[in-house]
């Protein structure tokens, strides 16, 4: 049935992005694990400078969507368009180079590397010099390393983390590690930044600061941000379009107000909620 149904018109792209090619468009996206359909009929469009939210109960398939978009999993069905271009056949690395960067629900920093080195890993494809000139310390090495160093500090300054540049990433407090993950992802120069539970484990004041920073990042870099988050204050506070996932399917799309009042969403959350 899926192929014949016309795609739902998308109501959640902000007006300012309507005349631009969407940064991301998925059509009939789905994946099966064995006999189990984890995600199905995932149709979503994200505007060029939109902050979009992906919410849903635990196990709804939110992180699976991120893994599909970044080609950690190859989709079983459907297409993903990035800047209007198909990404089928692309590898994770190619998708990153084409403009998708992400953070992880369980922090995956390179913990034995320093904060600055972590950011420089993100800059890897933008810093070019031959390894030989690196070993021999030729001028091209110094120039490129200087650019990388300055760029790394500039990115770290978004979160006022320049002073931590020399510290081991693994030694940072939890909140700082989450922020560093965002900086490292930004370093890859994305047009779409995927944040997987960026506020997890943060206290309310840290979360409030994070909300400001996410908006600031969008304004500064003019990129789209899609985030998975359980903190409803954050989602409702900054997301322009929200997509609700349950059992691997989109059950609602809309603005914060529309989602809050949607009976299907309320049922999915309250009906399935097991604790707290």
């Amino acid at each position, binding site marked *: 049935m899926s192929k014949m149904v016309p795609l739902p018109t998308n109501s959640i792209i902000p007006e300012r992005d309507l005349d631009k090619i969407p940064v991301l468009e998925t059509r009939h996206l789905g994946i099966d694990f064995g006999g189990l359909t984890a995600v199905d009929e995932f149709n979503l469009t994200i505007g060029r400078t939109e902050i979009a939210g992906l919410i849903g109960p635990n196990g709804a398939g939110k992180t699976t969507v991120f893994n599909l978009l970044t080609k950690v999993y190859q989709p079983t069905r459907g297409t993903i368009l990035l800047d209007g271009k198909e990404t089928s056949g692309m590898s994770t690395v190619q998708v990153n180079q084409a403009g998708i960067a992400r953070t992880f629900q369980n922090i995956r920093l*390179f*913990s034995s590397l320093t904060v600055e080195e972590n950011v420089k890993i993100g800059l*890897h494809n933008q810093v070019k010099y031959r390894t030989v000139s*690196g*070993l021999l310390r030729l001028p091209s090495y110094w120039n*490129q390393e200087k650019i*990388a160093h300055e760029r790394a500090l500039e990115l770290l300054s978004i979160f006022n983390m320049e002073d931590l540049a020399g510290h081991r990433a693994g030694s940072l407090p939890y909140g700082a590690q989450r922020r560093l993950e965002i900086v*490292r992802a930004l*370093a*890859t120069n994305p047009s779409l930044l995927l944040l997987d539970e960026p506020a997890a484990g943060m206290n309310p004041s840290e979360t409030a600061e994070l909300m400001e920073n996410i908006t600031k990042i969008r304004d500064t870099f003019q990129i789209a941000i899609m985030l998975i988050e359980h903190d409803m204050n954050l989602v409702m506070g900054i997301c322009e379009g929200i997509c609700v996932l349950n059992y691997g399917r989109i059950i609602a799309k809309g603005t914060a107000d529309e989602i809050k009042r949607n009976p299907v969403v309320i049922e999915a959350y309250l009906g399935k909620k097991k604790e707290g």
Partner: protein
Amino acid sequence: MAFLSYLANGISLGSVYAIIALGYTMVYGIAKMLNFAHGDVIMVGAYIAFCATSYLGLPSIVAILLAMAVCTILGITIEGLAYKPLRAAPSLAVLITAIGVSYFLQNAALLIWGSAPKSFPSLVGIPPLKLFEGQLIITGEAIVTVIACIVIMIGLTLFTGKTRMGKAMRAVSEDKGAAQLMGINVNHTISVTFAIGSALAAIAGVLLCSAYPVLLPTTGSMPGIKAFTAAVFGGIGSIPGAMVGGILLGIIEIFGKAYISTQLADAIVFSVLIIVLLVKPTGLLGKAINEKV
């Protein structure tokens, strides 16, 4: 004086082990596999250097560079043909493949160069150093080996610590998936690792055969296993660990031969390994492994 002489020999032999162990440990660190064919790459390197000097009459330095070039290509080829298709396979399959590659290289060498031992000409043109009025003689080979080992160590430390590729390698060794998502080409990184390890193997082969001049198709296997032991001893995956492990292993082996028993020297070496692993399972400088969920 005999003690100092043994110590010098031990450090020299240990330096060869260390250079070989670097190849094992880097490949393990990045690709999480044990490349048991590494020892045989040493042998190939030695044969190439032997042919270059004895048949073609090339100068030593050219012969060494040629051996390094051939081994680098060999290493990348082995990785691309034998290991890369198995990237998603269980580690046991990769291990068996590595042993297969090892036998393949030994038998290919047997086919090309025959089973008769070749007498390897020393490629080191430095006269021995005579100390204490000639009571302590340190061979030119030993001096060059130790210097080579130190230079390689410094070079690798700079490479992994300061260069873009080196940082990418450390990132891949820590979290392959996250590195890919940051745009690091893991396959390319692994190829580079094999290239470096194999080039080092060629140097080790030349140094080893310059000091112990009998060249056979099986020449690489025992030093390969010893170097693997050294890598585990020092903490597999750790570059300084391979260095420390290699040199300690060389010293233990020579002292064992000199003071205890020539026959038991290898048994002593491996006993020390077992004791170290019982006390510190991650090796001397190894890090505790954090399983990521």
